[in-house]
């Protein structure tokens, strides 16, 4: 298997296929379509390394990320999406939530591009 993440983050490699996604909208769809135990597994699997991953990425600029750092950031962005499902709701969707597709994200922040 090709290494997708920076050295030291091998324990997260197995999440890349499912959770390195193109944009915020696709992350939200992945969250609400996933069974809760899969969200729990991803959340719990990410936690031990998430702090170190953020420390690592704090040394990089958006717009200049190598492929491995980019994939590491993508995983963290999915963790940001999944976090409230675990920490707030205990289910994939907002409880009694308004349908996401009726209040969609129409302007997203780019995941990787430089911001100014």
């Amino acid at each position, binding site marked *: 298997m090709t290494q997708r993440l920076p050295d030291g983050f091998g324990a997260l490699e197995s999440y890349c296929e499912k959770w390195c996604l193109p944009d*915020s909208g696709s992350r*939200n769809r992945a969250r609400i379509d996933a069974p809760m135990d899969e969200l729990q597994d991803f*959340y719990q699997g990410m*936690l031990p390394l*998430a*702090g170190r991953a*953020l*420390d690592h*990425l*704090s*040394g*990089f*600029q*958006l717009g200049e*990320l190598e492929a491995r*750092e980019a994939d590491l*950031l993508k995983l*963290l*962005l999915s*963790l*940001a*999406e999944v*976090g*409230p499902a*675990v*920490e*707030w*709701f205990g289910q994939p969707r*907002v*409880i*009694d*939530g*308004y349908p*996401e597709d*009726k*209040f*969609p*994200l*129409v*302007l*997203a*922040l780019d*995941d*990787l591009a430089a*911001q*100014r």
Partner: protein
Amino acid sequence: MEIVSQATPVNLTARYPELDNGPVRADVYWQPEIFDQEIERIFRPTWHCVGREEQITATGEFFVKELPTFEFSVIVARGDDGAVRAFLNACPHRGNQVELTACGRRSAFTCKFHAWSYDLKGRLKSVPDEAGFPGLDKAAIGLTEFPCETWQGFVFVNLNENPPVSLIDYLGEQGADLEGYPFDQGTARFQFAGEVETNWKFLVDSFCETYHVPFLHRRTIHSTMAGPDNPHGRVVDVRLKGDHRTTSVWGNRAYEPKTVQAMALTHTPGVSITSAGADTVQLPRGLNQTRSPNWSIDVTVFFPGFVCVIGAGMYFTHQMWPLAANRTRWEMTGYLRPAANAAERFGQEHAMVELRDAVLEDANTLERMQRNVATGLIRAFHFHDHELSLRYQHHTVCRHLGIDP
């Protein structure tokens, strides 16, 4: 405990002798005839925020903004003289939409139908086969221009040739209160938008009181906007300024963030709606005017439908576009500081997700309320002292319509 006194006691409404504590009529929230009056007397005369100057910094840069209430769009463009102008997005030739792209940069706007072309000041520059229009006075033809003014980087348009008040007079003291906030630093923008089957006032209301937070938001922002020393989620302060008003929201400084939330806050400080006890020294005097150490955000409503939610490290806006008595287009735009490094991108995403999930908790309730009040069986509403912002909106609407509250 010193902090206890920071949760405001029940006495806000009493500051305003023209307001009482009694019930208010509910029909203003659903009667179609009243809605029609609101459009003509409140929404048509007023100034509408259409975007930010940062969206068009260079000559020829433009964006197109739909005004859903009025069912047309405007082109907002930066001219070669540096001025920002707003034009009806319609070709004077035969009415086609001139600009079909959401944003970009052009030296001229050219209609796709017959290629009539307009410069950045909206003047008609070229007409194909002009000889076929004998006597055509090109100098007298141009894109319809609307009064367009900016304030703190927000671009406002008015749909009247002669606006009833200037933008600065419209914003008044409430606008002056916010001047100096670094709105221009929030260049990392995101937006959610959709139609909700509810009256525009219900949507505005839902962001102007925190009385509902311990209940409707018990899983999410409850523990940040209420706490053991403020169990009912009372606000810090409400201030009424002209037709506008600001609610200063209380924040629980003892709140212990959840694990992922804590990582976001650590790596992107101040970006979250759930922050409290922020350093406000650098902020304009009008924000957190009481200088409460428990301040989290100010919710300022520029009447009627432009809501600015302002924190120390981010702000977002809600814009409510009434479509019918029971239907509103809701646009929520977040403005974050650019990420200083790749880790901060994570905090931005988390802030966006939290905000979205928290507001998704609101909208079903707003639709249920609308269905119920539209039966006519609910005749009156009762506002808590700390729902003063809602009561004042009601009074302001009734005053504009010339009806009793």
